[in-house]
């Protein structure tokens, strides 16, 4: 028996020693090839230290230089995080070596609604961005109109705005805003379906129903209008990410369209023309333009317009925002290199 005891110990010791040797040897040999690959494998990515730049947009999560076979930068990869409808949207963008076009992009993470916003992952949507001149704008999107500066006089009169495209429910938004003595006195928000029937009329006579109890669409539209007239501004509304507001009793519908329409009317009233659209994130503001579309549709004169996912404007805009922030970052980065 004592023999066995010794055998046991010896075996254990030998095996352990050999095991360590084997592991160390593997590490040594494995590391050798790792080093080689670091230098010459095409596609190797070298991280760019984003913190070394001054004011980097918080949306930029990480960036890399992609090396080609000679070890020069053949492209760039940027990961951006923007706010979608259901949560954060993580995009991986691969730019060409001049940072002019996107060669590849992928949605890494999202929380969008299945069947709607989640369609941004589909190739049909993403392919639009490949190899097209940047920046990109959403078709039929207007930039959030800037409210005219404080103290701008509004000209008396009645101003109307109509959307070009229907929203995904099939209704086209319209608004009629009246200014008397420099103040807003009447705001009529309506929407027309494909046959030209008015949502106000339909909700009044019970054909457009949202919930059985609770105010109808028309009543909510009028409550909103009254509140804005009383405050002579839309700032107090503060819509959240989903376009809902707590500021007006009884209003539970999404109000981003309403706010955009009011601003567009006011811009007309102040006599300033709307500028050609910037990229959708230009204002950098909290406001999201919902599915309302303004009469002047976008064409920035450079870059490309793309189609959003029908019915998922917020999700589509989050993608556009990510792309443009990545593009801006790369351009700045390349600027610092020269």
């Amino acid at each position, binding site marked *: 028996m004592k023999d066995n005891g010794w055998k046991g110990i010896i075996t254990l010791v030998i095996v352990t020693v050999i095991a360590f040797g084997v592991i160390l040897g593997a590490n040594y040999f494995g590391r050798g090839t790792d080093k080689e690959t670091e230098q010459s494998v095409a596609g190797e990515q070298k991280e760019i230290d984003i913190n070394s730049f001054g004011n980097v947009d918080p949306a930029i999560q990480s960036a890399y230089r992609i090396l080609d076979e000679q070890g020069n930068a053949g492209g760039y990869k940027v990961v951006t995080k923007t706010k979608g*409808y*259901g949560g954060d949207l993580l995009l991986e963008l691969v730019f060409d070596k001049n940072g002019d076009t996107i060669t590849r992009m992928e949605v890494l993470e999202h*929380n*969008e*609604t*299945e*069947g*709607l916003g*989640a*369609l941004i*992952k*589909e190739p*049909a949507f993403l392919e639009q961005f490949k190899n097209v001149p940047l920046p990109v704008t959403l078709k039929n999107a207007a930039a959030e109109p800037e409210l005219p500066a404080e103290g701008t006089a509004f000209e008396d009169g009645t101003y109307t705005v109509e959307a070009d495209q*229907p929203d*995904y*429910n*099939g209704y086209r938004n319209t608004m009629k805003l009246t200014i008397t003595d420099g103040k807003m006195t009447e705001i009529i928000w309506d929407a027309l*379906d*494909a*046959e030209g029937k008015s949502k106000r009329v*339909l909700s009044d006579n019970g*054909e*457009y*129903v*949202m*919930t*059985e109890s609770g105010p109808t669409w028309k009543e909510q539209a009028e409550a909103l209008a009254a509140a804005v007239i009383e405050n002579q501004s839309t700032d107090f509304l503060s819509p959240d990410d*989903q*376009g*809902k507001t707590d500021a007006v009793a009884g209003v539970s*519908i*999404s109000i981003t369209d309403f706010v955009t329409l009011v601003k567009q009317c006011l811009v007309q009233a102040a006599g300033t023309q709307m500028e050609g659209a910037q990229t959708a994130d230009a204002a950098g503001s909290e406001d999201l333009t919902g599915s309302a579309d303004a009469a002047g549709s976008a064409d920035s004169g450079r870059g490309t317009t793309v189609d959003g996912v029908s*019915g*998922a404007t917020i999700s589509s805009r989050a993608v556009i925002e990510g792309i443009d922030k990545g593009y801006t970052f790369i351009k700045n980065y390349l600027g610092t290199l020269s």
Partner: protein
Amino acid sequence: MTEEQGRKGPFLRGENTTRRIMGDVALALMPALTGSVYFFGIRSLLLVVTSVITCVLSELVWEWLTGKQITAFDFSAVVTGILIAFQVPVTTPVILIIISGIFAIIVVKQLFGGIGSNFMNPALAGRLLLMVVWPGKIIQYVPAAGTDAVSSATVLAAMKAGEQGNYSWLDMFLGYVPGALGETSKLLLLVGAGYLCYRGLINVKASLAYILTVLVVTFVLGGGHLFGGDPVTNLLGGSLILGACYMLTDYSFISARGRLIYSVAAGIITGLVRIYSSYPEGVCFGILAANCMVGLLARFEQKHVYGTKYDKDQKTAM
């Protein structure tokens, strides 16, 4: 829905019974099938027929290759085929229906031992495969014929996006809404279910329990604030009625109370998925999750067969 009652082997009820039962179920689905052709066009028929042929052929080929008793013509594959097609929109590519059918029959049903031995509902699992691997291809809904609708988001998807749609309750009940082939017309589905009740093939208590649980959960927790949910839309929009009447498996080896617990569990999960996940519809996940948990139920709610001692290896006889 009794998918489990027919079993192979020398029992008092043999294959003939399965064929009769499944034949009745297939018959009960015919009104809804007619409706789908009316609402979505002749392509619905193409999808359903393809699905049925795929399922029957898969079962036939498998049983022939493995030398098993041929049960491919006992109509259970037909029912699975119809139900698979009923859960997808009319724009679904045919190849995906075929893949789904093969997966449902061979992987989910036959590999486990054939009818009565599978733990997951094959039709739901077939749809789950499509949702996991090719999610973008099965969500292109179109408006139903006979409506003025321009848009095509399903009722539940619209509700999840925060916009109330413009479909009246009557529209949703009759089927004039966008949706999957077989789920839209609650009226026609209920007609079929009525027939199944008459034939004694539906576990009414379980189905009702399931529906009620979903409604309660979505009413209490949905809608952004307590008690703000919309029970009617949840009842009439989506595939709740389809699932409750035709896809809630009836297990013979757990007690009646156990079956109720099963339905309630499925209902809770369906409701939670509808409210908190990014999917607008939760019936598929709810029932499948409950399918997975049946084993736990069986542990505690075993049906006691009088005169026999419970032996772990004994296959419970009726």
